[in-house]
């Protein structure tokens, strides 16, 4: 809300300076987000009159003028040509300041002395005139020598105040003034009321009739009529006022309704009375499908839960939101009907949302207007219209008010105030606060003798004060949050234990960052294109009804989509060596239910050790990624799992992918991204991903660590290189080796895998190192040989492998 400092001065004597005032308001809950000086730093510019305009003796394109101020006659050289002798202009005298810190000095232009500068609109920081050019020509009635900013109302500050939704009473000059008065204890200046003498016209009852069909949605409707007015442009001061508060100046009627709304906070509307059919005004629900063209020129189709102002035939306004185009005030308007009403906040908000129209009026009505302030605004506006556009105000007003406002008293307990705030505020201080807030109160019987209880009745404009806690908040506000003592609560001790989920996240972050992975956070929503990479069926996705962009319109189904986006982004910025992981939610629908799962995902691509002068320039492969996963699983104590190679995961390279399983349940996937997928994303280097389900991991996790004794007896090593059919996977060999069940076999390591020269094309050579040991004694060669050959026999029988470098 924009608030003029000078306007406030009309209400409060000895108003604190702007910055000080802003701080006081902020600390009372009306946050001032900025203070704008309207003069933009202009100093020393005065109203002057041109006496003569002559040619510059040395330059064809310049003029030489004599200009008069109260200080004398000044010689001015000027490049503009739009002025003539007699015009009044804004003259910057030597020493004057213009916006952006420009200083005016005496200068010589083409050999002729110029004692200042006649200013254009843009040089004065004002919006330039349409089709303009040249200097600003001022109104003839401005006195010569007067300060320019003062005459134009620019010696003012605009406070930009963030009014919270609970305080519609502060959406006006009067509201803010009332608040300042409560905060600073300065009295509000009394305001004039409407003099009876001004009502000179006919009896209003003879001119219009008004009825409310829907009293629950319109609790009060008042109107006045002014006849024989002359609609025209507003005077400068009014234009300046409404414009500096963010309104466009329209004419001397509409500007008045806006001016009064700014001053009192109550929205008004003026109809061209002659265009109201049969001079009948009916407040009713719109018929289903009924149409109205609103002032913005848009045709609106209405529904039955919307409220309209209608004449005998058709709607003439969307109640409390926007008037109709047909009954708009124009230069031809002679008689006006001025409306001031109270509309139901919910109804206004629903209609405003449904039609997508937010106006200054709807904004105030949906937050709650002052039902008792309706006629004050009406009177003020009618009077101003008469003053500014002539006309005769009809005698009397129409005031339809079926069930007048009857406020209920709120019980406020001294003990409760002090309990909630941990204060020791006394009765007198409370009563002082209530008084400053304009809350009527009287003490009522308390349950406990030491307590005090009041029946408190807030003013009608304070729609937010309904319950005791509301009053307590206002008292705390006035008392000052800073004065409330700071304490630390007494509480029972409690042990805070980390959840299993948290433990997994923690450990995973530790392990992966130690392994060189950077943690990424991607948006939870992705583009349909990215979504489809990991989810074959788009209908399984959760779509946003109102996304910001198509790129962020569907909830991700897998972390892989975001990680691929991360890769693409980095490659586009020449970051070619990527090792990233992410922990976060993925989403899906299951029938009508939505499902959220938390996942751990990772992606690697590029050089294994990055670019450095002293490391190998190897490129990462499948096993770098798989090793990282295995490290995470080991670190979490997840041992009961298997990795099953798979070729049917759509976005992964067939033959370079698979799934992790635990207890027969899938726990995650890993593999190289399919070349087609990479191509579709314009990614030009291989990438490897994994994604694990955190909740499945939790079922397999064993975070209990147990000590294993360090072996006391030596181990015996047997190496065996074997030629194996390439179709056979290591996992199968391993299962067979384990299946032999030798208690002496401690471990099998792979120390070489080779295919190529000297090996048949369909075969590969794999070299295994078998470690034998007993925890109880030193093994003999015979024992080891027996165990070892049993294993090799089994492998031969099962897979028909050929043992090469068999050692005895």
């Amino acid at each position, binding site marked *: 809300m924009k608030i003029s400092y000078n306007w406030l001065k009309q209400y409060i004597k000895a108003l604190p300076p702007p910055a000080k005032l802003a701080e006081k308001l902020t600390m009372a809950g009306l946050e001032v987000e900025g203070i704008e000086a309207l003069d933009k730093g202009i100093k020393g510019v005065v109203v002057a009159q041109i006496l003569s305009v002559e040619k510059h003796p040395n330059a064809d394109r310049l003029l030489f003028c004599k200009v008069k101020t109260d200080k004398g006659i000044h010689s001015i050289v000027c490049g503009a040509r739009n002025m003539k002798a007699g015009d009044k202009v804004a003259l910057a005298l030597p020493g004057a300041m213009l916006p952006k810190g420009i200083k005016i000095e005496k200068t010589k232009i083409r050999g002729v002395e110029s004692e200042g500068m006649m200013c254009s609109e843009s040089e004065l920081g004002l919006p330039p005139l349409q089709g303009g050019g040249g200097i600003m020509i001022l109104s003839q009635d401005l006195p010569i020598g007067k300060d320019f900013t003062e005459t134009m109302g620019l010696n003012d500050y605009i406070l930009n105040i963030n009014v919270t*939704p609970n305080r519609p009473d502060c959406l006006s000059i009067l509201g803010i003034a009332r608040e300042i008065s409560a905060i600073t204890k300065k009295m509000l200046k009394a305001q004039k009321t409407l003099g009876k003498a001004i009502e000179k016209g006919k009896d209003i009852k003879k001119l219009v009739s008004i009825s409310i069909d829907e009293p629950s949605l319109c609790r009060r409707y008042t109107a006045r009529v002014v006849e024989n007015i002359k609609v025209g442009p507003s005077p400068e001061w009014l234009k300046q006022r409404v414009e500096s508060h963010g309104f466009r100046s329209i004419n001397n009627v509409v500007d008045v309704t806006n001016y009064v709304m700014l001053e009192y906070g109550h929205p008004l509307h003026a109809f061209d009375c002659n265009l109201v059919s049969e001079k009948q005004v009916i407040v009713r629900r719109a018929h289903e499908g009924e149409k109205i063209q609103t002032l913005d020129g848009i045709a609106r189709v209405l529904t039955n839960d919307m409220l309209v102002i209608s004449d005998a035939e058709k709607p003439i306004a969307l109640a409390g939101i926007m008037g109709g185009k047909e009954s708009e005030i124009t230069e031809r308007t002679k008689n006006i009907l001025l409306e001031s009403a109270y509309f139901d906040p919910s109804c206004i908000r629903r209609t405003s949302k449904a039609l997508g129209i937010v106006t200054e009026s709807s904004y105030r009505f949906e937050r709650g207007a002052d039902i008792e302030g309706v006629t004050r605004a009406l009177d003020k506006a009618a009077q101003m219209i008469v003053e500014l556009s002539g006309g005769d105000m009809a005698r009397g007003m129409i005031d339809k008010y079926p069930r007048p406002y009857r406020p209920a008293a709120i019980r406020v307990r001294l003990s409760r105030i002090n309990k*909630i705030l941990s204060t020791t505020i006394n009765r007198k201080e409370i009563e002082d606060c209530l008084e400053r807030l304009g809350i009527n109160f009287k003490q009522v019987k308390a349950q406990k003798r030491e307590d005090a209880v009041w029946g408190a009745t807030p003013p009608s404009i304070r729609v937010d004060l309904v319950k005791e806690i509301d009053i307590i908040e206002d008292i705390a506000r006035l008392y000052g949050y800073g004065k*409330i003592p700071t*304490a630390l609560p007494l*509480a029972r001790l409690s042990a805070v234990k980390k959840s299993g989920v948290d433990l997994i996240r923690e450990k995973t*972050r530790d392990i992966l960052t130690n392994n060189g992975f950077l*943690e990424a956070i991607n948006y939870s929503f992705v583009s349909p294109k990215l979504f489809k990479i990991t989810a074959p069926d788009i209908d399984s996705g959760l779509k*946003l009804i109102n996304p910001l962009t198509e790129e962020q319109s569907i909830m991700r189904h897998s972390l892989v989509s975001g990680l691929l986006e991360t890769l693409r982004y980095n490659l586009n910025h020449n970051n070619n060596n990527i090792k990233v992981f992410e922990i976060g939610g993925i989403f899906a629908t299951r029938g009508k239910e939505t499902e959220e799962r938390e996942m751990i995902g990772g992606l690697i691509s590029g050089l294994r050790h990055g670019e*450095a002068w002293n490391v190998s320039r190897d490129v990462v492969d499948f096993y770098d990624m798989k090793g990282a996963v295995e490290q995470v699983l080991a670190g979490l104590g997840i041992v009961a799992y298997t990795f099953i190679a798979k070729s049917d995961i759509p976005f992964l390279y067939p033959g370079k992918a698979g799934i992790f399983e635990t207890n027969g349940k899938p726990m995650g996937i890993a593999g190289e991204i399919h070349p087609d997928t990479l191509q579709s994303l314009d990614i030009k280097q291989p990438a490897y991903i994994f994604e694990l389900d955190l909740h499945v991991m939790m079922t397999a996790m064993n975070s209990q660590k147990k000590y294993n004794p360090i072996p006391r007896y030596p181990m015996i090593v047997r190496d065996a290189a074997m030629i194996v059919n390439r179709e056979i996977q290591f996992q199968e060999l391993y299962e067979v080796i384990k299946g032999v069940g030798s208690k002496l076999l401690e471990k099998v390591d792979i120390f070489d895998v080779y295919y190529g020269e000297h090996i048949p094309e369909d075969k590969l050579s794999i070299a295994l190192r078998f470690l034998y040991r007993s925890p109880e004694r030193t093994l003999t060669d015979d024992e080891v040989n027996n165990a070892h050959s049993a294993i090799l026999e089994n492998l031969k029988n099962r897979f028909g492998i050929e043992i090469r470098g068999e050692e005895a």
Partner: protein
Amino acid sequence: MKERLLQLEKAALSEISSLKNKEAVLEFKNKYLGRKGELAALTKEFGKLPPEERPIVGEFINSIRGRIEERINNLLTAFAQSEREQRLKGEKIDATLPGRYLALGKRHPITQVMDEVVKIFSGMGFAVAEGPEIETDYYNFEALNIPKDHPARDMQDTFYIGEDVLLRTHTSPVQIRVMQNKKPPLRVIAPGKVYRRDSDVTHTPMFHQVEGFMVDETITFGDLKGVLTAFLHSLFREDTAIRFRPSFFPFTEPSAEVDIQCVICNGKGCRVCKGSGWLEVLGAGMIHPMVFKAVGYDSERFSGFAFGLGIERIAMLKFGIDDIRLFFENDVRFLRQF
């Protein structure tokens, strides 16, 4: 005899100073001190001496041998040393070249700040609770005293998935879920992702929040001030100035906005604090009786405070980041810095 011995010593000592390397020294040693060397040859004449001179001459021979040996040893040590120096010089590397290391990964700056916030509150006995990111209108709004058609809904522009299903706009729904399932006393924080329909230099449609609350029989506004002051002093500097000013949230009353003295300009006024010298970092307040009513707590018996803070904002202040979107671009040159 003595004469010849002295001559021998003189010759040897003059020769020794011209020796250039270890080999020459060894040859020299052999020549003078070897079994067939010059000193040995003289010693052979020892027998010809009268018995009474023998001990004296013997001692003299030994002293000459000792002196020559000492010179030889000194020379050998010197040669060995210079030889080693030569060798080491040849093996010299450029030690100013950078070292070799495995690049460590980093936690995301948001994770780091989140962890820090959670740690501080854990230290004060707050337990961590979590809830779904996809919420119902009831938990996100209704139960928090934000009825339909209320202008307060404009404070949080919402992403919808269905008519009553939405992406949570704050982690406050967790407050409702916890209170529905547990009785006071409660000390809980709820960290997590939240979503609002907003995008510019200071807003992203997804961000992280920590909401916290404490409910018991005697919790006051003073406690709210105390706990949040302790928290902010731990998160920022111990002497950071803090102010509480009135504000409005539908689910708390009285409500407060908590400002810290600008960490960029120390309160003098700058672009980040818009010249005010203060930075808004927390929203807080006493839990509204309507919220207690929604979860079936007696608001005459129990009272409590709740607060919420945006992690991105804190991270931006702590690290001096001026564009919130950097957090979610995941440029590795950004991620590596924290």
